[in-house]
């Protein structure tokens, strides 16, 4: 019990100030390595301040001091009891070549689920167009996809002027931002127990399947592959990975087979979710460039075979990257 508040505050204030200075330093220098003595001193200061808080809590007239001590104790508590690895500086190459593919592989089942839902959508969209071609305006809400494929191919191949001349960079930027927003939205809908994410993936699949079958039925398969493959082999997996991240959130919320509280489950996957969505963002930047600067050019400007081969090479590299990168000990240039 505090009898003389004035003396109590005067006596304890140096310890509070010392703790505050130490906390400021720890927060300002994420790489700070304290010696054993410094750690012991930090812990003692924390315990002393926490005890002071307990004493002053009963003191009716000291709300400001109490708030100050609560804040100090809260900050020190976060530093002392935090068990997650301290976030140090980011090493972009290490993150790209190791963290990203390792994270992908760790949650590959969520990716397969994302792929399965998209393929189901593809099958639905393809069958719908095959069985009822009149359903095209319902399935494809984009005007440029409603055109007869043969007519479009003829127009593209006989075009006398470059319709993207002077627009390629801004078109590329529009594609990148739009696709990234769709990806983030797909991820965020994971909070609806994954229902929203699944709907987004299925709907993407429906559009893809419907367009593919529409062009195949019209005998324009080569044009379709040459048009979609250069950017699609990166863009579609990027959306699938965003779906994977959304499904990770959903699985953490549902928590099937995991008895840990939802808060713990969500905490466990938050770093992986961020890694996957940053990976998606990078892939979409690449896809945006390719779509604006390559995919929109057709024969006779660029042969379809060359575009298909380019897309094929991209796909092989992408699969190799996610399957193999970071599986062995890191190469020397990735060492910190």
């Amino acid at each position: 019990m505090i009898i003389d508040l004035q003396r109590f505050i005067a006596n304890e204030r140096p310890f509070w100030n010392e703790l505050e200075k130490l906390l400021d330093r720890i927060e300002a220098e994420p790489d700070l390595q304290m010696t054993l003595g410094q750690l012991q001193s930090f812990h003692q200061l924390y315990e002393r301040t926490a005890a002071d808080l307990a004493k002053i809590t009963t003191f009716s007239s000291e709300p400001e001091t109490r708030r100050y001590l609560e804040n100090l104790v809260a900050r020190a508590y976060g530093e002392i009891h935090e068990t997650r690895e301290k976030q140090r500086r980011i090493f972009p190459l290490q993150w790209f070549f190791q963290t990203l593919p390792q994270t992908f592989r760790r949650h590959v089942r969520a990716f397969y689920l994302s792929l399965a839902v998209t393929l189901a959508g593809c099958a639905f969209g393809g069958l719908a167009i095959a069985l009822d071609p009149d359903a095209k305006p319902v399935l494809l809400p984009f005007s440029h996809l409603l055109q007869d494929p043969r007519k479009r191919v003829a127009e593209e191949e006989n075009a006398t002027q470059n319709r993207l001349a002077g627009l390629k960079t801004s078109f590329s930027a529009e594609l990148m931002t739009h696709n990234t927003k769709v990806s983030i939205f797909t991820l965020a809908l994971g909070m609806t127990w994954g229902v929203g994410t699944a709907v987004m993936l299925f709907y993407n699949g429906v559009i893809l399947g419907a367009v593919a079958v529409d062009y195949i039925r019209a005998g324009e398969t080569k044009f379709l592959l040459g048009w979609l493959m250069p950017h699609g082999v990166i863009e579609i997996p990027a959306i699938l990975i965003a779906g994977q991240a959304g499904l990770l959130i959903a699985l953490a919320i549902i928590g099937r087979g995991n008895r840990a509280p939802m808060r713990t489950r969500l905490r466990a996957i938050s770093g992986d979710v961020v890694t996957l969505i940053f990976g998606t963002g990078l892939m979409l930047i690449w896809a945006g460039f390719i779509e604006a600067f390559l995919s929109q050019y057709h024969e006779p400007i660029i042969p379809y075979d060359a575009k298909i081969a380019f897309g094929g090479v991209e796909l092989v590299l992408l699969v190799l990257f996610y399957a193999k990168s970071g599986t062995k000990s890191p190469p020397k240039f990735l060492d910190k």
Partner: protein
Amino acid sequence: MKTGTLSIRTPEGIVFSQPLAGPVTRFLAWLIDQLCISVAMMLVGLVLHLIQMVSWNLGSALYVLVYFVISIGYAIFFEWTWRGQTIGKKLFRLRVADVEGMRLQFNQIVVRNLLRFVDALPAFYFVGGLTCWLNSKCQRLGDIAANTVVVRAPRIAEPDLDKLLAGKFNSLRQFPHLAARLRQNVSPPEADTALQAVLRRDEFDLVARVELFGELAAHFRGKVEFPPEATDGVADEQFIRNVVDVIYRARAETRMEPVAAC
């Protein structure tokens, strides 16, 4: 249960609490942030307009990209560099904190801000606001996913005690040991009730004022028994003024130098 306070008990048994921010204050802070984003875009637009005069294509592309980066990255950047605060949150004295009192991590900030896409549905953060209103810790979906809360750090207005209590003899001060015991026995909410009653005494109806101070005096007389010479002949209202003087004057005398509240 919705408490409006985030209380954390440390393994040492110490409890510290922080008041939680409600949906309205958070919405107002968000409006300020939107204003900041608009101003930033206006300034960027002026620069990009010059680039557009040289290359319309490049200028437009940069505008699209910069707008995207600022609108998504604004909150992430400020919450990370300002330890849980954006400009709007600073103005309204709000702060993002870990729900378990741990160190706020970059991942948490990214997740809570990316999930704005769902919280903002269908317009003006309806989903987020509704979730926040229903949730016991006032969390929107992004906060739930990231394990964060938004806490308040209100500035406590200091009453002008000199003006309020000046020139009055305080009979309770003749017994310092009993005055110290009174300070010890009175809880913070009780002290605040007495202070508010004295501060707002002129706003009460006369009868209500007499009744209120009568009840308060009876309550505080039960806290510590002062000798008759300290209480006899002292009206109920004066007794409460003396109690406030004992509690808060001691605080004024021992006040610390300004400290960072958060």
